[in-house]
């Protein structure tokens, strides 16, 4: 009878524990027995039968409640015991899994490593995508209600407006939204150490209030800071700056910093990771200043509040219940009304709202697009890794077939077996997840420092969200790694064959072999696709690097004086620039120094042009030009080649000298397509160019490409004139330095400018290369990550192929023995196996090429001057993978060819 068998055996045979109504019967049995014994004892002492029964019942307890209470108690007991047992069996399974792990270190390590790499790659991509595209700006309350403005189809810079326009908009929209404004400006900041260039945010009085942020230390700006004449000399710094420059010292409030020689007091610190409403890709902003300080510190208008210069960017918080479309309409209406009051106003101006949440941005930046693609790719890598792990698990399950068969024969349910398998793979996956944390940390470190330099990276290397992601992925990985072995094993499991063993396993074996082949072939195809992607990005990167910028990237540094000094245009400004140039030329390694007004990456002036004899409605003339006034050795210093003609000579650089000009090649082609521009003349002026003196063109310079990838944009026209004839605008003047390697020169020039007797009020000192680096970022990211993923997948596939063929050869030991006995040579065995692997890899390569070709259009927009269907790259990858696959299979084949035929035939 079932209830006589001890619990333990019942568990093993999984014959089910007590069913509910058995509890009733058992309790009744026990009560009945007790009463019977009591009656017997009483009768033995002389009681009558009936009295004894009554007494026994009395002694037992209250008739009505005794039995139900006991039944309830017994039911509770059984439930608790069941629960304990389940826990026990899970613990036992886990212990078993751990033991097996220790006894097969190579296998365990292989699986854990594969899974760790897959999960780690995903975690790294997740942390990037999370920061770039998912996280709302830190420290902003209810960020879903905060918006910036932009004209349709353009970015935020198109919303620049004057203070007058902003005030009008703020007043008009008061009922539906709170408005504030900000402006950006590069300033030289000195904390008492070395001055450096920072981008400062000039903000309106209600900026911090609108964003709903509380300071980590000190206070934000108050109304008085804005009403004081010229603005109160106060500043708010970022948390990062506080930690970095002041070591987190709480006494930082009240300390001073110098901004362009102005002494400002620090009054507050923003919360950690707070970056206003700016996207993280733009980097960290470290200084907030009251907008009223703008006139003192920048070369903007003297009085911001009455000026009409468009240098403010509005920020809006929508009031609850207001539709964003309403706000956009009203904003547009206000601006149009203003434009009507201005001559040549743009009455078609329109504004739309842009959410500050990166997840709601209308378009993706190139870096974001590449990051998304890499995210998808990393999923592929995870799948490959899990396939590999599943392969290994399957192989192990096959090795333990007999043991499993015995357990099934003894009554272990399939469900229990499945659970053991799942716990097994869960343990491995969790360990893999643990290692993945380290992988993700390394990946994040590389990202932060190398590939995504300049992007604001908030938080630690591996933060809570990424950890959560790792755990979730580990779960998924465990499902993937145990799914296939589980399905295969349990569905087609034939106990008889497994117990008996031997060649009667043919049916199951071929099924398994087919499955493993499928696994390896798909791995190979995925890896090939990844490698193709990697090579495409590498080539794009090379092409981008090869774009003729028109300047010498590696050797050129540019230095400016602080805007405050140049704006004042004091009489000694010229002397300061001369001193700067002199000091720069004394720096060891510097070969040439020039001066220019309007060089690339500095403030430039736009001018109208006119050409006698050419219609003013020509596009080239309508577009205007950038004016660059340059010293005679400018072209050789900055590395812009003169294609035809000559640069200016030293004695031509005179205010009263003949008006000369050098124009860039595109402009020359547009104005004089059929003749040589040299010798012709061109008129340049801020207004009414046709009345200006006509400058004789003496040379044609190369086009400049400051935007590396915007090759289809009509090149900006540049006109070079001798420095003295340039209008003498100090704010756009800069010293160009050419030296050995720009990175070192930057430090030396800066040191020279600040040292040597008295410190020059420098503005910015930078290498041209550093300005272009952010443009290379997306391609560097793509090339590196695709390369890493591709290499990873490649290695995993090679390992997978190797293990598959090792297994395959081992299974065919007998067959090998027979063949060798019948006279097969080593070469024959090798070609036998080699043919198989070649066939498989060909299939894989075919699939890969077809997939790559059909997915080409998704990756094409991310490439540069490279076709996504580049056959040479496809061919290269195809050949490489096939060779590796064949090579990986030949190693076990070689071993198989060396067996002793007699032993092989006798073996099992």
């Amino acid at each position, binding site marked *: 009878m079932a209830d006589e068998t001890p619990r333990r055996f019942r568990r093993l045979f999984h014959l089910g524990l007590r069913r509910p109504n058995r509890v009733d019967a058992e309790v009744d049995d026990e009560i009945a027995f007790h009463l019977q014994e009591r009656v017997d004892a009483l009768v033995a002492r002389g009681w009558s039968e009936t009295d004894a029964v009554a007494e026994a019942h009395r002694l*037992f307890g209250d008739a009505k409640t005794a039995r139900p209470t*006991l039944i309830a108690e017994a039911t*509770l007991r059984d439930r608790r015991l069941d629960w304990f047992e389940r826990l026990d069996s899970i613990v036992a399974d886990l212990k078993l899994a751990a033991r097996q792990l220790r006894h097969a270190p190579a296998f365990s390590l292989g699986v854990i490593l594969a899974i760790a790499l897959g999960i780690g790659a995903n975690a790294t991509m997740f942390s990037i995508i999370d920061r770039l595209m998912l996280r709302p700006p830190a420290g902003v309350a209810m960020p879903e209600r905060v918006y910036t403005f932009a004209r349709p189809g353009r970015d935020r810079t198109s919303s620049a407006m004057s203070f007058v326009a902003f005030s009008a908009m703020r007043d008009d929209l008061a009922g539906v939204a709170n408005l504030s404004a900000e402006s950006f400006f590069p300033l030289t900041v000195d904390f008492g150490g070395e001055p450096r260039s920072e981008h400062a945010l000039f903000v309106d009085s209600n900026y911090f209030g609108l964003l709903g942020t509380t300071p980590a230390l000190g206070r934000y700006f108050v109304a008085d800071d804005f009403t004081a004449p010229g603005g109160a000399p106060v500043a708010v710094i970022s948390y990062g700056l506080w930690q970095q420059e002041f070591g987190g010292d709480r006494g930082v409030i009240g300390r001073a910093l110098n901004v362009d020689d102005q002494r400002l007091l620090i009054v507050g610190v923003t919360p950690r990771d707070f970056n206003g409403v700016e996207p993280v890709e733009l980097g960290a902003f470290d200084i907030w200043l009251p907008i009223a300080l703008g006139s003192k510190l920048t070369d903007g208008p003297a009085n911001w509040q009455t000026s009409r210069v468009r240098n403010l960017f509005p920020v809006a918080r929508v009031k609850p219940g207001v539709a964003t479309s309403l706000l956009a309409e009203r904003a547009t209406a206000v601006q149009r009304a203003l434009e009507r009051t201005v001559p040549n106003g743009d009455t078609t101006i329109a504004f739309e709202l842009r959410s500050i949440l990166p997840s709601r941005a209308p378009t993706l930046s190139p870096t974001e697009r590449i990051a998304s693609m890499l995210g998808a790719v990393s999923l592929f890598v995870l799948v490959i890794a899990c396939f590999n792990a599943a392969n290994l698990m399957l192989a192990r399950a096959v090795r333990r077939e007999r043991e499993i068969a015995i357990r099934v024969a003894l009554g272990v349910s399939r469900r229990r077996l499945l659970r053991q398998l799942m716990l097994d793979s869960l343990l491995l996956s969790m360990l893999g997840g643990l290692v993945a944390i380290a992988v993700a940390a390394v990946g994040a470190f590389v990202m932060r420092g190398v590939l995504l330099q300049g992007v604001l990276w908030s938080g630690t290397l591996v933060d809570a969200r990424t950890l959560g992601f790792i755990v979730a992925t580990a779960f998924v990985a465990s499902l993937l790694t145990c799914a296939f072995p589980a399905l295969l094993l349990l569905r087609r499991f034939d106990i008889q064959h497994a117990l008996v063993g031997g060649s009667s396993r043919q049916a199951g074996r071929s099924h398994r072999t087919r499955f493993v082949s499928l696994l390896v072939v798909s791995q190979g195809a995925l890896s090939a696709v990844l490698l193709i992607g990697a090579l495409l990005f590498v080539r794009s990167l090379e092409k981008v690097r090869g774009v003729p910028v028109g300047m010498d990237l590696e050797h050129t540094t540019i230095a400016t004086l602080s805007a405050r000094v140049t704006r004042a245009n004091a009489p000694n400004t010229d002397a300061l620039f001369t001193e700067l140039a002199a000091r720069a030329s004394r720096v060891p390694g510097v070969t040439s120094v020039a001066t220019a007004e309007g060089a690339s990456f500095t403030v430039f002036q736009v001018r109208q042009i006119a050409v006698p004899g050419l219609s003013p409605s020509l596009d080239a003339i309508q577009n205007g030009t950038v004016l660059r006034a340059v010293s005679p050795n400018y072209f050789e210093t900055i590395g812009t080649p003169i294609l035809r003609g000559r640069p200016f000579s030293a004695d031509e650089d005179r205010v009263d000298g003949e008006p000369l000009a050098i124009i860039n090649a595109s402009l020359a082609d547009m104005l004089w397509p059929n003749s040589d521009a040299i010798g012709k003349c061109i008129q340049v002026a801020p207004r009414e160019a046709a009345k200006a003196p006509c400058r004789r063109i003496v040379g044609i310079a190369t086009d400049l490409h400051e935007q590396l990838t915007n090759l289809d944009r009509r090149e900006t026209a540049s006109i070079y004139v001798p420095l003295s004839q340039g209008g003498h605008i100090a704010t756009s003047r800069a010293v160009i330095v050419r030296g050995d390697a720009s990175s070192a020169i930057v430090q030396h020039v800066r040191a020279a400018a600040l040292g040597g007797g008295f410190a020059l009020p420098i503005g910015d000192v930078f290498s041209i290369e550093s300005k272009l680096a952010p443009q290379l970022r997306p391609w560097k990211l793509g090339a590196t990550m695709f390369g890493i993923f591709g290499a990873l997948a490649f290695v995993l596939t090679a390992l997978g192929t190797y293990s598959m063929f090792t297994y395959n050869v081992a299974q065919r030991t007998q067959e090998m023995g027979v063949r060798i006995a019948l006279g097969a040579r080593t070469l024959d065995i090798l070609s036998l196996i080699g043919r198989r692997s070649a066939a498989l890899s060909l299939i894989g390569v075919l699939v890969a090429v077809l997939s790559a070709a059909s997915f080409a259009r998704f990756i094409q927009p991310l490439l540069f001057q490279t076709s996504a269907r580049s056959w040479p790259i496809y061919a290269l990858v195809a050949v490489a993978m096939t060779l590796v696959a064949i090579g990986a299979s030949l190693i076990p084949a070689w071993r198989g060819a060396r067996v002793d035929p007699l032993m092989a035939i006798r073996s099992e």
Partner: protein
Amino acid sequence: MAKPTPLPILRGNLEVLVLKALTAGPLHGYAITDWLEHQAHGNLELVDSALYQALYRLESRRLVKPVWGVTEKNRRARFYHITDAGRAELRAEAARWTRYAATIGDILALPVPATGSANG
């Protein structure tokens, strides 16, 4: 002399007594009742159903393990064995009880402090 009224068993103590009863060897429910009645000399109020409740609770805590067996009279009965965990629990509880009883006893045995002046 009149028999003193049996005292109710305080909560939790019944389980400890049951554990003690099983230390010598496995017993079925009635045998435990009989042993307790005998040892208590009528000083404890024993309700049979309460005892089985205690037994089931002990079983759910895995302090006792029941095994179906047969008595000398050839009746089927559930014999309860004490487990190792049960023995440990018994030791711990006994120590706790001894300490408690000793403390109460010590306090109650304190001499009455002498008052200032005698009555009368």
